[in-house]
């Protein structure tokens, strides 16, 4: 008994030794900064020799009165609400096609997946060229085929966000397709045979069998999509710089501007707290909402 106890304790020590390098790094660059962010959101921005001082909820008050902030939040929510369902739906369709027996499967898979391997910053450059008024491919098509006038899609407040969304959807759908493809390959072919014997149509088979079986994947993919909708802002740097008139500024881009352009680190910390809160609420909410469907189907 004494021996067993010491082995157990020895195992504790081994486990802690094995864990400590990873945990040290994890705490230093994830948990510690997350907590400090929360703390510094209650402090003013240090300037020169004047240290940060406790100002309570002043940063939050500034935030509520900041019209740009509300626009940025709205932009980002719209961005998430549009890009997530569209890219997930396209990903599912792609996966169903690639999983089938269509002609030219190799090309299809390559075409769908290639954008995933490209850096977002490079992708943005390619699309920027696309959107160039009068000169880019989109206007070439508009002029040449339909005789429509030139249009600056990235220069107008009512089109810029959609133009940026198209890039995100193009980049992400292929990535999500992979997860659906993986899930589809685990579905036994006998289900399809059984459905055929029952005379179920393809649509019924998809709706009643395939789609429910893919629910855990849908959950996983959409949580990922939510995180990406708030995490990836590289294309904003290249394509619009947040403009015109903040019409394409997303939350993380705004944080970057506040912190590294205007050096308002206190305010940037407050914005980061909002971002973290939003992410947690959305991810957890999604989990509960979709998780119920996963189990009770």
């Amino acid at each position, binding site marked *: 008994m004494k021996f067993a106890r010491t082995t157990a304790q020895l*195992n*504790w020590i*081994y*486990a*802690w030794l*094995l*864990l400590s*390098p*990873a*945990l040290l*790094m*994890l705490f*230093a*660059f*994830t948990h*510690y*900064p*997350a907590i400090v*962010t929360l703390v510094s959101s209650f402090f003013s921005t240090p300037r020169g020799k004047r240290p940060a001082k406790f100002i309570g909820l002043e940063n939050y008050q500034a935030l509520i009165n900041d019209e740009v902030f509300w626009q940025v939040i709205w932009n980002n929510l719209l961005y998430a609400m549009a890009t997530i369902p569209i890219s997930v739906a396209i990903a599912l*369709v*792609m996966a169903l*096609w690639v999983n089938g027996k*269509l*002609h030219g499967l190799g090309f*299809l*898979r390559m*075409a*769908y*997946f*290639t*954008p*995933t*391997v*490209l*850096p*977002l*910053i490079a992708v943005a*450059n*390619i699309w920027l*060229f*696309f959107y160039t008024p009068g*000169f880019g*491919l989109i206007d070439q098509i508009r002029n040449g085929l339909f005789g429509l006038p030139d249009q600056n899609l990235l220069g107008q407040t009512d089109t810029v966000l959609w133009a940026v969304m198209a890039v995100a959807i193009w980049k992400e*759908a292929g990535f999500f397709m*992979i997860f659906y*493809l*993986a899930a589809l*390959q685990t579905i036994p072919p006998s289900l399809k045979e059984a459905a055929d014997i029952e005379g179920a149509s393809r649509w019924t088979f998809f709706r009643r069998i395939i789609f429910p079986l893919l629910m855990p994947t849908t959950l996983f993919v959409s949580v990922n999509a939510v*995180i990406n909708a*708030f995490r990836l802002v590289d294309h904003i*740097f*290249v394509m619009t710089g947040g403009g015109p008139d903040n019409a394409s500024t997303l939350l*993380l881009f705004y*944080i*970057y501007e506040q*912190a*590294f352009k205007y050096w308002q*680190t206190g305010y940037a910390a407050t914005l*980061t707290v909002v971002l973290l809160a939003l*992410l947690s609420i959305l991810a957890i909410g999604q989990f509960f909402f979709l998780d119920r469907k996963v189990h009770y189907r």
Partner: protein
Amino acid sequence: MTEHVIPRSKPFRLNWDKTLNTTGAWVLALLWFLPLAYAIWTAFHPALYEVRFDLTAPLTLENFSKAWEAAPFGRYFLNTVILVTGILVGQFILCTLAAYAFARFEFPGKSVLFTLVLLQLLVMPDILIVENYKTMRHLGLVDTITAIALPYLASGFGIFLLRQTFMTIPKELEDAARLEGCSILGVLWRVYIPLAKPTYLAYGLVSVSHHWNNFLWPLIITNSVETRPVTVGLQVFAAVDGGLEWSVINAATLLTSGPLLIAFLLFQRQFVQSFIRAGIK
């Protein structure tokens, strides 16, 4: 009469269905491929042909050489290679050790610590740029490749992925090795790591492509040619106003994504399979 109609109409309907699906799949694929094809077209032709699609247009590599001369892309590539290699090695070591502890040891606080690890999937270092920048300044690491890599070394995703793999390996193999006198690290090295090779490959590919493409954090933490990875280099290059032709920018764009793109096209099947494997777990 009806007997004749049914067998005839059935194969016809099936074909129609397949044709429709094939067409849809191809239209989408072409649409998806178009931006890249366009970039390739402009990059390999003189600026004159940027918007003129003439199949007889002369091919040229001039745009690439112009881009290569206009910015220190050689140095940027070296920085990126050092960066992704460093991150990969660090992640493999840290994540392997931690994953092993989570997979095969019982110790107090295990579930709490594991939750904290998984929390990183949501609260990523990518978002905590303000505080991580301050930390790097305190450590005197601003504008170093080390600073770009540090926040990513302990990856929650990597620990999770490897733990799942290690847990599928029979415990008997470990016990047998221990009886032969293998130490804990010896068991890890001789039993677990060899058996988890496919997971390492999958995770390695995901990690390399992710960090090759990463932009925001490197942009913030670097400010010199000696540290900038290609993504930031491309942005600095393309953001300079005036004088740059689109064909040259597109050439630079392809240049930065080139190695990854070529590797992907060559090992397409393995690449997709790896991503699938990383996704399943």
